[in-house]
C-alpha cells in the first residue's frame, strides 16, 4: 500500500547528478555507483553478481534491523521511528526532486525506430510515450511500452561471461587490444536489421581499418526484402494516400510494420481525424486481407479471405493475372475454387479502379515469389513513387551478408573472430537445418553482446551484457528514414554493460580500450562522440542543431532517398502442391521472436487473438480440429447456454496435446481452437520454450540451461526446431498425432461471442438489403442496437445534488470523459501495457491468470461475430464463409460511471466520486469486501488477492506460502515504479482512474502558470484576473497513458466542459452522445458512463460476394 521510501525524492541521491541526459550536464557526471549504493541498498546496485544476490538481501535486512533498533533506543523514537531526509550533496542542475523530467529518445528496431518521450524521476526512466512531434510518430506498441521493464529486469545479464562463466574485464581488454592492433584480423560483425547511421559510419571505418572484416545482418524473422527490392532497399507505405489496401498475410498494423500506422487508422473513421466532418464513407479506406490466421490487421479488414499459407501465392497470382501480369505467373496454378475466384476478381477490380491510390502489401516473412508479385502488382497499379502510397527507399544498411554467408565464412575460416551484435538469438532461432551452433563453434573467438544470457550468450566465447537503449548513446532511423537520436537516461545499471557503438569504437581506437558507460573522469562515452560526429554530417556542426536534436529527438529534414522499383519480370517460381497440414511459424505478439521471453509484462499481456498468456499453443480452426479427431464435436463459438468449453474454464482449463511432425522433426504442443483460421493450417507462434526447470512436467526440453530467467522459464513450446531455412515462415506436409496428454492453459477470455448482446457494435457503409438501411440510417441507429432498441429510458427520482443545492459534479472547470473508437481500435495490447507501466500494476503469473486474477486495468475483450448469430443457425449456411467470423475488439476499463453502482455498495466510502467526474478509489481506505467489483457491470475492478508487489508471483507456489514465501525485494522491477501512484498491498481493490495523477499534476501546473503570468505582468496578486480560461487546462493538453500509447489513435480523452476539446465533437457537455456513432456500453442499466464507444464502421465493396455479411456483428441483435 505504499510508495516505497526510496522513491521519495527527499531520500534520493547523494553527491551530484544521477545520470547524464544532455550535453549541459556531461561535465558534471557523477560517481554513479556510489549513489546507487546509497540509493538502493536493497536494489540492483549490490547485486552485480549472482553470488551477491542472497547476501545483499540479507545484509539489507540486517541494516534495516539495525536502524530500527537504534531508533528504538533513541529518545525521539518514543514517539515514532526516525526517518531521514537525504538531500543531494551538490544539487544537480535540472533535477527537481519530485518532478518528472522528460527526454526525447527512441527505440531502435528492425522495422524502423520508434520515437519516444521518456519520463524520468530523479534519473530513473519509468514510462515511455510516443514522441508526438516526430513526423513518423505512430504511438507505441506493446513491445516499446514494455521495453522499459527490461532495463530493470531481474534476469537481465549483468556480468561479463567467458564461456558461460564469469569472466574478467581485464582479460577481455586483452582480446580487444590484440584485435585493435591487428589490422588484418579476420573479424566478422553480425548486426541486427535496425538502421543506425553511426553504426553504418563506423562499419565503413572498420572496413577501412580491418581489411579482412566482414559484415552481416541477422534477425530471426528477416524477410526477403533485400533479394526482391535490392541491396539495402526497403519499402515504406504511406497509408494516408491509400484508398484500397490489400494485405497478403501482412500484419502491417501490428507485428509487421510497413510504415507509420496512425494514418491508416485515421482513415478508418468516416468523420476524419478530429471527428469534425460529416460522416462520409468515401473518405474511408478499404482493407482487403488474405491470411491464414487472424492477425490484428486481418481483424480490421473490410473483406477477409482465409487461405492456407501455401495458397497465398495462388491468390497473389490471381490478382496479377487479373491485372494482366500473366507473364509473371505462368508457373502458378490458377485458383479453382469458384467462391474464392469471385472474391479475388472483384477485389482486383476494385484495386485497379483505384490505381495509384491502392496498396498491396505482402507479409515480409512470405516467400520471395509473393513479395515479387506484390511489387509487380503495385508497380502495375502505379502505386510506387514519392507521392504515392508506396515508396522504395535505400537505407544505409547495405552490403550486409546474411546468415548463410556468415556460416559459409565461419566454416571456411574467413572469419575467426565474430562479434554477435544482433538482438536475435541465432543459436536458438536460426533455421534448424542450418546448424548454426556448429558453425559458431568453429570461430576462434565469439564476442556476444546481448541483454540476456540466452543460448547464444552461453555458446559464445565472451558474453558482454548489453546496455539498454535507455542507458546508451546511439542513433537510428524511423521507417521513412528520419534521423532519430537514442539518448541515455541513466548510466548503465551494471558495470559490465556496454553498448554496440562502444564496442565498435573500442575496436577503432588505437589501443582497443573498451570504454563503457562513461569515460574517465566523467568524460563522455565514446559512443557519444561517435553519434555527435555522425550527426554533424547530417544536421550540421555547432551546438545549436545538436541541442535541438537532443531536445526534439530527431532531425526533421533527413529521410531516406527514394529509389526506383526494380520490378521483376521473370516468372515467379511455383510452389509444389501442398499435402498434409500447413504449419505457420508465426510471429508472437508477446515474445516476438523470443527476445522478450523474460519480459513479464509482455508475457502476461494476453495474445490479442488467442487471449492466451504465458504460453504458446498450436492454433487450429474448429473444423480442422474435429477432422484431426482432437474434438468429438466442432468447438462452437457460442453455445446457447454459455456452457464451459470442452477444454474447461479458468484454472481447470487444459488444452489437448498433439504431436506435430514436419520435415522429420516432431514437437508435442498444446492445441487451442482459433476461429477464423484457414482449414488444414496449424499456427505455432515462435519464441517460446527457451528453458525449463524442475517445475516443468511436460519434458519440453533440457532443464536448468540458464538460458532464460524466472519470467520466461517453463513457458510454451519451442517450434524453432521444426523450422528450416526453406520453411522459415511456413512448412507444408505436416502430420499430426494425438498424445492424450493435456496442458494447462491460462486464458483471460473464455467466451468469444457476444451472446446476442450488442456490446462492440458494428455497422456497414452499404445497404445490404436486410432492412437495416443505408449508411446514414445505420449510423443513426447505432444507439438502438441490441437491447437499447426497446429498453425504456432511465429515469432517476434523485436529484444529484448536495445539501447546499450544488450539483455533485460541481467542478466548473473540468469534467473528464473518454471515447474509444472501435473503428480504429484493433485490439493490440499497447494500452494495456502502457497502463501497467504508468500505474504500477503488478504481474501475477500464469496460475493466477488462469484463475482469473490478472490485474490489468484494461481488459481487451475480443469478440467474434457471425451475421446470423454464433450458434450455427441456419442463416450462417447462407453466408459467404461461416468459418470466418468478424473480429471486434473492445477494450474495457473503468468507464467512470456518473451513477456508479460500485460506489453505493462500499461500506467504508473507499470509492466515491470526485467533483470532476472521476470514480476515485482510495486504496488506503479499502478493506476489501469486493462488493464494488461484484456490482460493477463492466467488471473493471481488480482485487489484490495476494501481496503481488511484495511476494514474487513467479516462483512456483510462492504466493500460497504467505509469510514464508520469497519476497520481491531486490529482485523485482521496483525502480520502474511511478512514484505518483500508490503501490497497492494485498486485500485492496484497484482500477482505472483516468490516470488521475496526471490530471492532478496538470491542474496544479496550470495554476502555477497562471500565477507566474500574472505576477510577471507586475500586478499585485490581489488584482490578478482569474477566470475559467486561466484555470482550465488547455484543450487536449493532458493525455492519459493508454491514449498516448495507442498506435491507432483510437482513444480520445478530454474535458467535456471545454468546447475546444476533440471530445466535444463526440460527446456533449452533459455527457450525451453528439457523434452518431457514439454509444454507451450497457446503456440500459443507467450507469451514465464517462467512457463511451464509437461503433466500428466496415466499408465493404458492394461487388464482393461477401459484402452483405460485412459489418453485421451486432446489427441484427435486439
Amino acid at each position, binding site marked *: 500500500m505504499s510508495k516505497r521510501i526510496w522513491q521519495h525524492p527527499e531520500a534520493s541521491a547523494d553527491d551530484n547528478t544521477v545520470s547524464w541526459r544532455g550535453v549541459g550536464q556531461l561535465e558534471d557526471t557523477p560517481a554513479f555507483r556510489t549513489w546507487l549504493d546509497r540509493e538502493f541498498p536493497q536494489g540492483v546496485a549490490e547485486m552485480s553478481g549472482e553470488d551477491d544476490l542472497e547476501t545483499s538481501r540479507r545484509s539489507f535486512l540486517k541494516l534495516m534491523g539495525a536502524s530500527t533498533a537504534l531508533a528504538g533506543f533513541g529518545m525521539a523514537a518514543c514517539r515514532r521511528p526516525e526517518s531521514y531526509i537525504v538531500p543531494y550533496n551538490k544539487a544537480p542542475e535540472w533535477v527537481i526532486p519530485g518532478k518528472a523530467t522528460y527526454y526525447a529518445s527512441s527505440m531502435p528496431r528492425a522495422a524502423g525506430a520508434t520515437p519516444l518521450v521518456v519520463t524520468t524521476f530523479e534519473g530513473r526512466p519509468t514510462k515511455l510515450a510516443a514522441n508526438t512531434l516526430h513526423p513518423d510518430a505512430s504511438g507505441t506498441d506493446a513491445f516499446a511500452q514494455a521495453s522499459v521493464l527490461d532495463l530493470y529486469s531481474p534476469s537481465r545479464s549483468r556480468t561479463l561471461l567467458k564461456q558461460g562463466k564469469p569472466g574478467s574485464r581485464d582479460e577481455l581488454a586483452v582480446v580487444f587490444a590484440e584485435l585493435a592492433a591487428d589490422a588484418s584480423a579476420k573479424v566478422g560483425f553480425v548486426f541486427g536489421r535496425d538502421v543506425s547511421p553511426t553504426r553504418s559510419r563506423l562499419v565503413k571505418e572498420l572496413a577501412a581499418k580491418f581489411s579482412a572484416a566482414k559484415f552481416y545482418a541477422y534477425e530471426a524473422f528477416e524477410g526477403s526484402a533485400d533479394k526482391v527490392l535490392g541491396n539495402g532497399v526497403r519499402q515504406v507505405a504511406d497509408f494516408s494516400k491509400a484508398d484500397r489496401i490489400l494485405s497478403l498475410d501482412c500484419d502491417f498494423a501490428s507485428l509487421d510494420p510497413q510504415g507509420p500506422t496512425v494514418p491508416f487508422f485515421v482513415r478508418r473513421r468516416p468523420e476524419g481525424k478530429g471527428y469534425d466532418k460529416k460522416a462520409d464513407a468515401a473518405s474511408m479506406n478499404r482493407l482487403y486481407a488474405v491470411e491464414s490466421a487472424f492477425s490484428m490487421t486481418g481483424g480490421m479488414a473490410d473483406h477477409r479471405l482465409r487461405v492456407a499459407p501455401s495458397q497465398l501465392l495462388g491468390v497473389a497470382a490471381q490478382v496479377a493475372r487479373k491485372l494482366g501480369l500473366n507473364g509473371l505467373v505462368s508457373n502458378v496454378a490458377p485458383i479453382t475454387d469458384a467462391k474464392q475466384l469471385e472474391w479475388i476478381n472483384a477485389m482486383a477490380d476494385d484495386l485497379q479502379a483505384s490505381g495509384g491510390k491502392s496498396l498491396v502489401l505482402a507479409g515480409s516473412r512470405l516467400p520471395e515469389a509473393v513479395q515479387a508479385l506484390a511489387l509487380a502488382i503495385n508497380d502495375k497499379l502505379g502505386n510506387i513513387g514519392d507521392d504515392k502510397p508506396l515508396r522504395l527507399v535505400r537505407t544505409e544498411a547495405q552490403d550486409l551478408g546474411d546468415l548463410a554467408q556468415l556460416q559459409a565464412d565461419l566454416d571456411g575460416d574467413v572469419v575467426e573472430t565474430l562479434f554477435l551484435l544482433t538482438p536475435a538469438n541465432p543459436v536458438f532461432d536460426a533455421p534448424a537445418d542450418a546448424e548454426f551452433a556448429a558453425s559458431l563453434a568453429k570461430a576462434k573467438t565469439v564476442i556476444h553482446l546481448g541483454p540476456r544470457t540466452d543460448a547464444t550468450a552461453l555458446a559464445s566465447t565472451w558474453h558482454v551484457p548489453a546496455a539498454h537503449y535507455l542507458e546508451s548513446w546511439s542513433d537510428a532511423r524511423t521507417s521513412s528514414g528520419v534521423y532519430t537520436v537514442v539518448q541515455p537516461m541513466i548510466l548503465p545499471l551494471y558495470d559490465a554493460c556496454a553498448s554496440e557503438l562502444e564496442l565498435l569504437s573500442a575496436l577503432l581506437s588505437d589501443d582497443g580500450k573498451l570504454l563503457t558507460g562513461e569515460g574517465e573522469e566523467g568524460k563522455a562515452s565514446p559512443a557519444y562522440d561517435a553519434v555527435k560526429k555522425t550527426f554533424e554530417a547530417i544536421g550540421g556542426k555547432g551546438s545549436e542543431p545538436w541541442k535541438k536534436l537532443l531536445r526534439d529527438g530527431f532531425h526533421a529534414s533527413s529521410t531516406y532517398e527514394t529509389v526506383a522499383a526494380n520490378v521483376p519480370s521473370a516468372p515467379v517460381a511455383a510452389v509444389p502442391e501442398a499435402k498434409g497440414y500447413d504449419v505457420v511459424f508465426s510471429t508472437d505478439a508477446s515474445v516476438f521472436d523470443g527476445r522478450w521471453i523474460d519480459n513479464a509484462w509482455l508475457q502476461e499481456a494476453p495474445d490479442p487473438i488467442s487471449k492466451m498468456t504465458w504460453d504458446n499453443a498450436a492454433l487450429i480452426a474448429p473444423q480442422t480440429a474435429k477432422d484431426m479427431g482432437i474434438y468429438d464435436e466442432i468447438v462452437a463459438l457460442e453455445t446457447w447456454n454459455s456452457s464451459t468449453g470442452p477444454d474447461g474454464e479458468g484454472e481447470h482449463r487444459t488444452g489437448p496435446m498433439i504431436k506435430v511432425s514436419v520435415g522429420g522433426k516432431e514437437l508435442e504442443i498444446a492445441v487451442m481452437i482459433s476461429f477464423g483460421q484457414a482449414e488444414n493450417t496449424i499456427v505455432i507462434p515462435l519464441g517460446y520454450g527457451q528453458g525449463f526447470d524442475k517445475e516443468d512436467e511436460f519434458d519440453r526440453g533440457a532443464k536448468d540451461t540458464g538460458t532464460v530467467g524466472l519470467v520466461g522459464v517453463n513457458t510454451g513450446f519451442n517450434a524453432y526446431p521444426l523450422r528450416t531455412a526453406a520453411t522459415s515462415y511456413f512448412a507444408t506436409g505436416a502430420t499430426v498425432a494425438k498424445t492424450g496428454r493435456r496442458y494447462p492453459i491460462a486464458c483471460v477470455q473464455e467466451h468469444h461471442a457476444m451472446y*446476442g448482446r450488442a456490446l462492440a457494435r458494428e455497422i456497414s457503409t452499404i445497404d445490404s438489403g436486410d432492412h437495416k438501411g443505408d449508411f446514414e440510417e445505420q449510423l443513426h441507429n447505432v444507439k438502438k442496437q441490441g437491447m437499447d432498441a426497446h429498453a425504456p429510458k432511465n429515469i432517476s427520482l434523485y436529484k444529484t445534488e448536495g445539501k447546499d443545492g450544488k450539483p455533485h459534479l460541481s467542478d466548473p472547470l473540468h469534467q473528464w470523459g473518454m471515447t474509444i473508437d472501435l473503428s480504429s481500435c484493433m485490439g493490440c495490447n499497447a494500452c494495456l501495457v502502457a497502463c501497467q507501466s504508468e500505474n504500477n500494476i503488478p504481474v501475477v503469473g500464469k496460475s493466477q491468470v488462469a484463475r482469473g486474477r490478472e490485474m490489468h486495468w484494461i481488459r481487451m475483450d475480443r469478440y467474434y461475430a457471425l451475421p446470423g448469430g454464433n450458434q450455427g443457425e441456419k442463416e450462417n449456411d447462407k453466408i459467404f464463409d461461416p468459418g470466418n467470423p468478424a473480429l471486434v475488439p473492445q477494450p474495457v476499463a473503468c468507464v467512470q460511471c456518473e451513477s456508479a453502482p460500485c460506489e453505493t455498495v462500499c461500506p467504508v466510502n473507499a470509492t466515491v466520486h470526485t467533483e470532476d467526474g472521476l470514480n476515485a478509489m482510495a486504496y488506503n481506505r479499502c478493506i476489501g469486501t469486493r462488493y464494488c467489483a461484484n456490482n460493477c457491470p463492466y467488471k473493471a475492478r481488480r482485487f489484490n488477492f495476494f501481496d503481488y508487489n511484495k511476494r514474487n508471483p513467479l516462483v512456483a507456489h510462492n504466493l500460497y506460502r504467505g509469510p514464508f514465501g520469497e519476497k520481491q525485494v531486490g529482485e523485482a522491477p521496483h525502480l520502474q515504479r511511478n512514484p505518483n501512484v500508490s503501490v497497492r498491498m494485498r486485500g485492496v481493490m484497484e482500477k482505472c482512474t483516468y490516470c488521475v495523477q496526471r490530471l492532478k499534476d496538470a491542474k496544479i501546473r496550470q495554476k502555477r502558470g497562471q500565477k507566474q503570468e500574472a505576477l510577471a505582468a507586475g500586478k499585485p496578486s490581489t488584482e490578478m484576473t482569474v477566470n475559467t480560461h486561466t484555470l482550465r487546462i488547455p484543450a487536449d493538453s493532458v493525455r492519459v497513458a493508454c491514449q498516448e500509447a495507442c498506435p491507432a489513435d483510437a482513444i480520445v480523452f478530454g474535458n467535456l466542459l471545454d468546447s475546444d476539446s476533440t471530445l466535444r465533437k463526440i460527446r456533449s457537455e452533459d455527457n450525451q452522445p453528439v457523434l452518431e456513432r457514439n454509444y454507451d456500453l450497457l446503456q440500459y442499466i443507467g450507469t451514465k458512463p464517462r467512457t463511451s464507444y464509437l461503433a466500428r464502421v466496415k466499408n465493404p465493396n458492394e461487388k464482393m460476394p461477401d459484402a452483405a455479411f460485412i459489418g453485421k456483428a451486432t446489427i441484427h441483435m435486439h
Partner: protein
Amino acid sequence: MATATEHAPSPSRQGPKLPVLEREKLILNGRSYHWITERICGVLENRQPFLWWLLFIPSALIAMIGVGLGLTYLVSTGVGVWGMSNRSFWGWDITNFVFWIGIGHAGTLISAVLFLTRQNWRTSINRAAEAMTIFAVMCAGIFPAFHVGRVWMAWFLAPIPNANAIWQNFKSPLLWDVFAVSTYFTISLIFWYLGMVPDLATIRDRCKPGLRKMLYGIFAMGWRGGNRQWSHYEMAYLLLAALSTPLVLSVHSVVSFDFATSIVPGWHTTIFPPYFVAGAIFGGFAMVLTIMVPARTLYGLQDLITMKHIDNMAKIILLTGTIVGYAYLMELFVAYYSGAKYEMDAFKFRITGPYWWAYLAMMSCNVLSPQFFWFKACRENLWVVMAVAMCVNAGMWFERFVIIVGTLGRMFLPGDWKTYSPSWVEIALFVGTIGMFLALFLLFLRFLPCINIAEVKWTLRESDPHFDDHHDHPDHGAAVEPAYQHELHSKDAAEAKA
C-alpha cells in the same frame, strides 16, 4: 394456553351440541412438574452418553482445524488462498454466510413469532432453536468478517470518530448488514439468556454448593420466582418477542439487500426480501429438526418433544418450501417478463449453464423434497423427516450458491465470463464451521437446559389457576379425546368397516 379453548360453550348459549375435540397434549403421559424438572435437568446433570463424546471430539477437532487453521492461513497469506477471481469476487464465503445466517433465523422466529401467536408447542423446542440461532450467527459472522481483504482494517466499518474525519457509507447494504447482523446477534443473545434465567435458577437450586452452584447462581442472578419478578419478566419477554419479530424479518431482508440493491442481473429483484425470509424459516426449521430429532432420542425427551412438534415443524417446512418454490418460479417469470436480455440470460445460464447441477440440486431439495410432507405417514416417519430436513439443509446451501456463484460467473460482458471453483481452504473453513456449530451445540446440551423448564410446566393443564374451576363446571358435551387420536380412531373404524 392449550386448555383455554377447551372450555365449554357458555351456558347461556343454546343449540345443538357440537363435538369439541380436545387438542393433543403437548406433554404426554401426564408428567408432573417435578418429572419435567428432573428430566430436563437430568440431561446436564447426568453423565453424558458415549455418543455425546463420539460427536463432540471430532466436531471440536474439525472446528479447530477448519476454522482455526483455515483462518490463520487466510489472514496470513491473503484472500487468494480461496478460489475467487477478478470475475467472481465472492464464492463460498458469502454463500456460507447467507446459509448460516438463514439457519440462524429459525430460533428467534420460533421464540418470537410463535410466542406472539400463542403457539404453545414452541416451548419444547424454542430453547434449543435459540441456541442454534446464536451458534449459527457465530458461524455466519466468521465469513463476512474474514472475507475482507484486510481484516486488520475491518474497524473502518465501525462509526468511530477519527483523526481522518472520514465516516462509513450509510447507503451501503454491507454497512446495513453489519448493523443488522450485530443487532440480531445481540438481541438473540439477550432473548436467549433472559429466557434461561428461571431455568438457571432451577439448576442452581438443585446444585450442591460448589463451583457449579456458584456459576449457575451468578448467571441466575438470584432469581426467586416471585410473581413480582414474573410480572416484569413476562412483560420483558413479550417486548423482546415483539422486537425480535420485525428484527428477524429485517435481518434476512437486509442480507437480501446485498443482492437486491445491486445491479447484477439475477440479483436485482424486488422479490428477494420475502423470498429470503421464507427461505430462512424454511432452512432454519429444517436445521432444528436435524438437531432435535436425534437429541430427543439421545436424551429420551419423547414426552416433551412429541410427534406433534415434529408434525408442526414439518408442516411449516412444507408451507415455506412452497413459498420458496413459488419465489423460484416467480423469479423466472419476472426475468422473462422484463424483456431484458441480461436478466433472461442470467436465469437461463443458472438453469442450463455451467452450474446447472447446483440449480437442479436446489430445485429438487427445496421444492420437491418437502412435498413428502403432504403425507401424514411421511411426517410421522422420523427417517423421512430427517431425510427431508437434510435435503433442505443442502438445498438451501445450493440456493445461495446458485445465487452468488451461478450469477457472477456469467454477468453482463461475455468477455469476462469465467467459472469459479472453491479451494480446499474454503471447503475446510465451511466444514470447520459445521464442526464448530455442532461442538457448540453439544456443549449447550451439556451445560444448559435444552428445554425451557418453566414454560413447559406452564403448558401442563394443571398449570392453569382455574384448572380446578374447570372441574367444577364440567363440560358435558366435550369428548375428552385428543383430536389427533380421534381422527385416527375414526379412520380405523372406517377401515374396519371396509
